[in-house]
């Protein structure tokens, strides 16, 4: 039986958990920075490499290795950019972390900057979460005031400025190169690679872009050592991570556990599926990761095992849906999101999500035609691997995986010209279904037999 391993969440129950005082008193705050400042920067990189920390933003690229891709220091600026543009449907780990204990990130930024010799780090926060933005600004100010940031950090002679930047509300800006363009004040759209950010990133200078949780995990590795970190998790997915349970689950929330834990174990801790219902499908790492059903309850939630089960660990956003949920409706809403958030740069994502959105809405409303299912599968094939960035690929995951698992349910919508589910039953709150407006208003009558 796997147990929880609270590290980043350890002090969330403390009074004013977000304050620097709490972090110092209860969270071993800034011990790691003091230690790091006595180490050679290269040794810090090695430590993180040895620990096996992999990117917590979804892709799982080894963090230390990413840092070591920076070209040799030429004395000119190099940057650390923290990606806090958490926008994926279902993903909700960075924002709670920044609300509850932002100093983990600030200390991680200081250590990482010292390791890669960066003197100006940026934290790009999703613009919609104004309260998080304020809390982070406050945390950074506290760190400045205490001498953890600014000129001559803790008397080490190392200078570091941290800028917290609020985005303007675009999912695409979570893509690292689009984030850099946005941070530079341009229209947020992904850049052509190469050059990769490690070579030409922010302001065309070598740049490391890391997820909040990755950087926030760095202090614990430095303080406790690589072997401590590597002792958690599996052989190739080491350490702990935040697992965010949401949806039809008795106690939704953040569960910090070693990678490799299973959903069955997590559900046990969370009190199971909501009373009187059973699991229908779930996402292992946000809406962009192909969905699972009950048969994958025992898949270890690590990069390799989830990959082997034909999905992705992603951001460990475990969205749980019980049998009251219409998979067509869920997928349709996800597709609404992707169509709304497609940046528009490349054809397949821009046009494909626009098309899929209309088919899904039509099928859900009872206007589907027999060809629609095959057409959707084929369109997803024309988007996947053809789009400019990974966000286009991600948009196809819910469609292809839901058709794979629940093709009959799609067919039932088409055959009976209506959705067999009552959306009110799946709601966890008082809910009156809204009818579609705009171009999708007449969806039910568009297709038909």
């Amino acid at each position: 039986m796997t147990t929880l391993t609270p590290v980043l969440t350890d002090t969330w129950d403390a009074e004013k958990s977000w304050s620097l005082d709490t972090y110092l008193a209860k969270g071993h705050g800034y011990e790691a920075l003091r230690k790091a400042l006595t180490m050679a920067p290269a040794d810090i990189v090695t430590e993180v490499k040895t620990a096996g920390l992999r990117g917590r933003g979804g892709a799982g690229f080894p963090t230390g290795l990413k840092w070591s891709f920076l070209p040799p220091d030429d004395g000119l600026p190099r940057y650390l950019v923290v990606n806090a543009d958490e926008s994926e449907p279902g993903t909700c780990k960075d924002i709670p972390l920044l609300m509850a204990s932002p100093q983990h990130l600030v200390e991680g930024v200081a250590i990482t900057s010292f390791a890669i010799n960066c003197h100006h780090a940026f934290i790009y926060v999703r613009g919609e979460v104004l309260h998080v933005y304020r809390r982070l600004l406050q945390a950074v100010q506290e760190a400045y005031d205490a001498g953890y940031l600014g000129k001559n950090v803790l008397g080490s002679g190392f200078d570091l400025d941290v800028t917290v930047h609020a985005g303007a509300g675009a999912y695409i800006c979570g893509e690292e190169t689009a984030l850099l363009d946005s941070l530079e004040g341009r229209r947020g759209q992904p850049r052509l690679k190469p050059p990769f950010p490690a070579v030409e990133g922010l302001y065309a200078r070598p740049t490391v872009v890391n997820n909040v949780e990755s950087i926030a995990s760095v202090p614990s590795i430095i303080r406790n050592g690589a072997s401590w970190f590597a002792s958690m998790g599996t052989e190739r997915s080491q350490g702990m991570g935040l697992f965010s349970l949401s949806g039809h689950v008795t106690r939704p929330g953040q569960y910090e556990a070693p990678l490799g834990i299973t959903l069955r174990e997590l559900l046990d801790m969370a009190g199971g599926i909501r009373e009187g219902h059973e699991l229908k499908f779930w996402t292992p790492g946000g809406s962009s990761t192909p969905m699972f059903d009950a048969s994958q309850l025992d898949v270890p939630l690590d990069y390799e095992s989830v990959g082997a089960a034909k999905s992705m660990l992603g951001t460990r956003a475990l969205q749980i849906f019980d049998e009251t949920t219409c998979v067509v409706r869920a997928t349709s809403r996800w597709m609404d999101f992707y169509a709304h958030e497609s940046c528009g740069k490349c054809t397949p994502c821009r046009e494909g999500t626009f098309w899929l959105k209309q088919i899904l809405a039509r099928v859900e409303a009872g206007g589907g035609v027999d060809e629609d299912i095959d057409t959707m599968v084929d369109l997803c094939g024309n988007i996947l691997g053809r789009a400019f960035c990974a966000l286009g690929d991600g948009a196809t995951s819910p469609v292809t995986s839901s058709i794979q698992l629940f093709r009959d349910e799609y067919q039932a919508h088409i055959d009976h010209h209506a959705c067999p589910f009552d959306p009110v039953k799946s709601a966890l709150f008082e809910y009156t279904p809204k009818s579609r407006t705009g171009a999708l208003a007449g969806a039910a009558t568009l297709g038909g037999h």
Partner: protein
Amino acid sequence: MTATADKATGAEAPVPTVTLTIDDVEVSVPKGTLVIRAAEQLGIDVPRFCDHPLLEPVGACRQCLVEVATPDREGNLRSMPKPQTSCTLEATPGMVVKTAATSPVADKAQEGIMEFLLMNHPLDCPVCDKGGECPLQNQAMSAGRPDTRFIDVKRVFTKPLPVSAEILLDRERCVLCQRCTRFSDEIAGDAFIALQERGAEQQIGRFDVDILDYVDDGARGAEATLAGGALTPDGTPFASYYSGNTIQICPVGALTNASYRFRARPFDLISTPGIAEHDSSCAAIRVDHRRGVVMRRQAGDDPAVNEEWITDKDRFAFQWQCAPDRLTTPLVREDGELRPASWVEALELAAEGLAAARGQGGVGVLPGGRLTLEDATAWSRFARTALGSDDVDQRARVHSEEETAFLARTVAGTGMGVTFTDLEKAPLVLLVGLEAEEEGGYLFLRLRKAVRKHGLKVMGVAPFATRGLQRLNGTLLASAPGREAEWLGAVTAQATGGLLPADLPEQEAQAITDLAAALAEPGAVILVGERLAGSAGAYTAALELAAATGARLAWVPRRVGERGGVEAGLLPGLLPGGRPLTDAVARAEVASAWGVDAASLPTTPGRDVTGILAALTDGTLGGALVGGLELADLPDPAAARAALAAAGFVVSLEVRASEVTALADVVLPVAPPVERSGAYVSWEGRVRPFPAALDSAAQPDHRVLAALAAQLDVPFEAVAELPRWTGERVEAPVEAPADLPELPAGTAVLASWHLLLDDGALQDGEPHLAGTAKVPVARLSAVTAEGIGVADGGAVTVSTDRGALTLPVTVTDMVDHVVWLPLASKGCRVHDTLGASPGDVVRLGAAAAGSDEAANGGAA
């Protein structure tokens, strides 16, 4: 410095090649070549929309997907997991590429993208301007599905969206390839259009003042246009001299021209290559015509000259050639009125009149600056043989004896000098008396390319840094008009080890030192414009500077015919090929070529334009033979009108009715460029031949002059080409800078030049183009403005004893005590209204506030 040295010798290091396989065919390409280019070399067609060889890769449309495998370290071929965009992928050694022709994966991928592109695209090909020459239409046929699976609702937009007065955008047809926005960012460098919104709502748009809480505070980064239009966030209006190129490179029918829209189908058009007649860049164009009517003009493809770009003037200004005031028959004056006449009658009368005028002091010859080389040669020969006159001058502008000597000495008969390619390789280009964007047309784009791609440094001697100079990242060497010679002289002094004046500000001293050093670098170029004729000593100083530093010197006139005219000898004292008229050997060579007795040629240099006009006025000259010349373009139009009115006998060769034809005794109609073949000579010295696009009975100048010569019994047959002149050349000019003018309170020195789009006769009949011309404004420095009590946006009256112009004021970072006006824009004809030229002292005064005239951007 090694790199610079290599640059100079032109010896480029050999580029290593890589060998790859595309569709089972091996090909070697230079390292860095994109896969899509390598495929082109093999003749393998890969469909594409966003890709354009002159723009940076973007990889947006995804149409050019191919399957790629590359060898790993052990040499085993590894397939890339996803199809790759061949427009962004550089070829690497051993790469194996499979296009749609050999790969089902690539074929499916391309078909999928094409289906997506067509999904929201309107099926209005039958009425679309692009239909028949449309990359989307063509590639949909080759790479698309035969039918559509889309049964849902298409995205719609209001259309058209006017991007400017001449460009209308149909957003529904747009495939968002970003060619147009990349063109304006990368090539032209002028804010113009940009992507807006996102997802399926993403669209090309101009800045919308109603969004983003934009506050128009009146601050302007650049000049407003006559037709108004929206502004960019920095206050720059959406105006560009090069915007028409976006229509041509648009791979669908999204960008359309207001004049051409819905007027023709590409497959009904006949295309004839041509050379643009609007400036001395002599850009290659394509004239598209239908049933004897020119419908549009496109950029030609000429990598050595204009690549694939032309100015909007080259593209849209062609209606003048078939304007309603076109002359179709000869006219003769009878009882004070012009009446149509037969060619026989008109030629007889013209010959008689010219012969008589020759006997009464001689005939002044004013051919104008827009002739082809053949015409210029004929005019030169006709003047010297049929009229026995060296009173010949093509310059319809400010001119000087110094310039005559400069051109005869260093330009005439020198063949190809500095070329566009040389500019690209140059480490430094110094612009003197020349605004590349306003006066050089395409020249500006090549300079900008050199700046962007090859690190060219540009410096400009001018009263202020124009938007053009700024977009070249140019350094301004601030100079009041007339003071250019002092700047150049100081640099010469620095280059030759002389001392700089002790009181020179440090910044200027540094600029001079830098410039002297940069000009000494191999390949450095000095480009001088025709405006130096109005700045005493400037041509002299430019020659001295070139000699002192080793920099190459080139003269860039504004009008298309001027370089050819210099070659043909359309200046007093200058025979064809740079031969001095005063040289007996030169005269003998020319006389023999022209089949006349050398003794019959004039031996002393004649009058220039000013001299000819004065002699016509006082009756010293008996008559005039005038070509395509606008009197309002001359430095003193009033004097010119009086001269031609007073002249004993005037023959005019013109395409359209003009002030000259109204004063002429005989008018002989001649053909516009589109109705005749010929050749212009570009500022480079490059001969630019072009065929006749339209069948026409209209005669070019040289045929009309031949008929006149026959009437006068003067031989005018074609002759063998003159050999290259190796004898003595005209003496170099020696002219000192003029004394500093007195500037009493309330006066300033006039600075002025032509804007590319102005009131010129060759832009007549194209209101949409005129709408993109800049609003005439007066530019003053803050100090000058304060001196007369006007503020930015107020109105100033610039006056002389002749007249006054009232214009809105744009306070500009510029030389004090100078006022800049556009030379010949609508509502601001400086020569005509003020009788003044750049460098002259004019009076300045605040105009009555809120004057309607000023607010509308011009005087009557």
